[in-house]
C-alpha cells in the first residue's frame, strides 16, 4: 500500500472538511484542556505534599513554667536520637515575633501578650524518617514532665494527602470521560466525512481500492484531529501558565515553600500522543460501523 498517496488523500480531506474539523478540534481542545488543567493541579499539589512529607518537623510545646533543668534534659534526650538533626529553642517572645512576621495580621492581634504563644523546641528530623517512627518519638517525648504537647503536623499531611488522592481520582475519571468524549466526537466527525465522500469512496472501490486504501485517509484524519486538539490544549495551558505564573508562584511559595511547576515533559508527550491514539481509535471504530468496504 502506498503511504504517500494515502497521506496525500488525508491532507486533501483535511482541507476539504476544514470547517467540520476545526469545530471538532476546538471543542476537543477544551476537553483536553480540562484534563491538562487537573493534571497540573495534581502535579503541584503532590509537589507540596512531597515537600511537607520530606521536611520532617516536630514542635514540642513546653509547659508553662517548665523548669530550665527539665528543658535542658529534654534537649539532651532529643539530640541523642538518631533521627533528630537539630533542635532549636523558641521562647514565647520568639514565637510571637515569628508569627507576626509571617502573617499580615491586624494591629489588635499584635497587641496579644507573649503568654499566648507557648515556648517550644522546634525539632527537625532526618529526611525519610518514617511516619511510625515520628509517632513513637512523639509519644515518648510527650510523657516527659516539661512537655505540654507535641505537634507532628501529621493531621495536615493527612488532609493534604486526602486532597491529593481526590485530585488524582478526579483526574482519572475526567481523563476517562474526555477519552470517551473524544472517541464520540471524532467518530461522529469521521462518519460525517464518510457520508460526504460517499461518491469518491464508491469510485475508489470500483477501481479496485483495497480496504486500507479507502480507510487509511480517514484514520489519518482522525489521528490528526486528536493530535491537534491535545496539542492546542497543551499550548493554551502553557500560555496561561506563563501569564499567571508570577501570581501563582508568590501565593504558593508563601503557603508551602514550593514553586509552581508545569507538567513534566513526558506528561505533555503522553497527552499529545494519547490524543492522537484516541483519534485513531475513534475513526477506526466509526469506519467499522459506517463504512462497509
Amino acid at each position, binding site marked *: 500500500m502506498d503511504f504517500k498517496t494515502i497521506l496525500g488523500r488525508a491532507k486533501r480531506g483535511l482541507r476539504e472538511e476544514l470547517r467540520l474539523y476545526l469545530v471538532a478540534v476546538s471543542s476537543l481542545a477544551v476537553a483536553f484542556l480540562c484534563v491538562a488543567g487537573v493534571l497540573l493541579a495534581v502535579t503541584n499539589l503532590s509537589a507540596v505534599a512531597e515537600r511537607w512529607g520530606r521536611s520532617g518537623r516536630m514542635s514540642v510545646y513546653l509547659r508553662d513554667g517548665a523548669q530550665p533543668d527539665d528543658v535542658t534534659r529534654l534537649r539532651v534526650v532529643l539530640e541523642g536520637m538518631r533521627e533528630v538533626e537539630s533542635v532549636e529553642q523558641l521562647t514565647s517572645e520568639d514565637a510571637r515575633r515569628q508569627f507576626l512576621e509571617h502573617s499580615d495580621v491586624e494591629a489588635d492581634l499584635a497587641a496579644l501578650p507573649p503568654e499566648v504563644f507557648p515556648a517550644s523546641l522546634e525539632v527537625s528530623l532526618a529526611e525519610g524518617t518514617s511516619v511510625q517512627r515520628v509517632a513513637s518519638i512523639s509519644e515518648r517525648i510527650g510523657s516527659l514532665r516539661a512537655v505540654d504537647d507535641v505537634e507532628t503536623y501529621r493531621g495536615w499531611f493527612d488532609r493534604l494527602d486526602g486532597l491529593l488522592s481526590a485530585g488524582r481520582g478526579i483526574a482519572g475519571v475526567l481523563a476517562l470521560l474526555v477519552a470517551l468524549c473524544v472517541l464520540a466526537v471524532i467518530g461522529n466527525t469521521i462518519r460525517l466525512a464518510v457520508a460526504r465522500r460517499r461518491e469518491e469512496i464508491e469510485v475508489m472501490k470500483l*477501481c479496485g481500492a*483495497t480496504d486500507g486504501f479507502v480507510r487509511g485517509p480517514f484514520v489519518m484524519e482522525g489521528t490528526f484531529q486528536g493530535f491537534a486538539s491535545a496539542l492546542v490544549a497543551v499550548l493554551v495551558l502553557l500560555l496561561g501558565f506563563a501569564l499567571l505564573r508570577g501570581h501563582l508562584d508568590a501565593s504558593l511559595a508563601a503557603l508551602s515553600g514550593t514553586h509552581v511547576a508545569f507538567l513534566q515533559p513526558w506528561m505533555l508527550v503522553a497527552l499529545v500522543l494519547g490524543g492522537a491514539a484516541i483519534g485513531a481509535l475513534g475513526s477506526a471504530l466509526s469506519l467499522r460501523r459506517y463504512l462497509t468496504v
Partner: protein
Amino acid sequence: MARDPDSKVVRPFAFFRAGVQSDPSAARRPILVFEDVYKYFRRDQPTLRGVNLTIERGEFAFVTGPSGAGKSTLLQLVYRKHTVDTGRILFCGKDVARLKPKSIPYLRRNLGIVFQDFKVVRHWTVYENVAVALEILAMPKRLVRSRVAEALERVGLAGRGSERTENLSGGEQQRVAVARAIVTEPALILADEPTGNLDPHLAIDILTLFEEINATGTTVLFATHDHSLIAKRDHRIIGIDEGRVVEARTGLRSWPGAEERAASDPASGLHAVAG
C-alpha cells in the same frame, strides 16, 4: 496503445497470478464464462435462472432486455458487487464467486466499469478522476501523468485534465468515466447502460468510443435497452428476459425488418427470433 488482442498485456495486479499467464492456452480461452448461474434476491423468484454464456476474448457484445430483466445483475455478479447463488462465473478461467473478499479489489483492477450515472467525483478535476484508478495501483506519478494524458486523448478530452468535472457536459463526464475505465488497460469492460442519460446523438458517440476501445483488443460487455442503438450495429446480442438468456445471436441489423420492429416495439424483435 493499439495491441494485438492476444498479446499478454502486463496487468498491475493479476488476481489470477498463478496459472493463466504462463498457460499458453490462456489466450485462446474465453475471457468470461457463465455456467448455469442462479441469483436470488427473493427466495421464490430468482433474478437470474440458469444463465449459460460464453464471451470470447476481444468480443463486443450487447446485453439487452426489458427493465428488471437482470442485465445489471448479470454485470454486478462479474465484478462481485453480488455473488452467484449457484453456478460459476469464470473470468480468465478463475471462478469469481470463490474469491475471498480480500481478493475482490484485485479482480476489479482487471475490469473497467462504466455506469449510466457516470460515477465521477464531481468536485475533482478531470485528471484526478482518471488518475485515481492508477493511484490505487501505487503507480509512480510520472507514469500516471503520461497514461492519464493518453487515456484522455483516446476519449477526446485531450488537454482538459485541469477542468472541474462538474463543469463538463453529460457526454463529456461519461467520457471521463470511460477514460478512467480504460486507463488501467483492463481485459474486460463492463458498461451498464452507459448511454442511458445521454441524448441519441451523444449515445452513438459513446458507443463508437467503446467500439474503438474494442478494436484495440479489449473485450466489451455493453448493457442497454436502447434498441435503436443496437439496431445500428452488427454486434453480438445477448438478450435477457425474466432471468434467462433468450437469444444470443449476432447482428440484429442483418435480420430483415428488424429495424422497423425495434422501432415500434423494442422487445418484439428479440422474441420473434427466439420463438
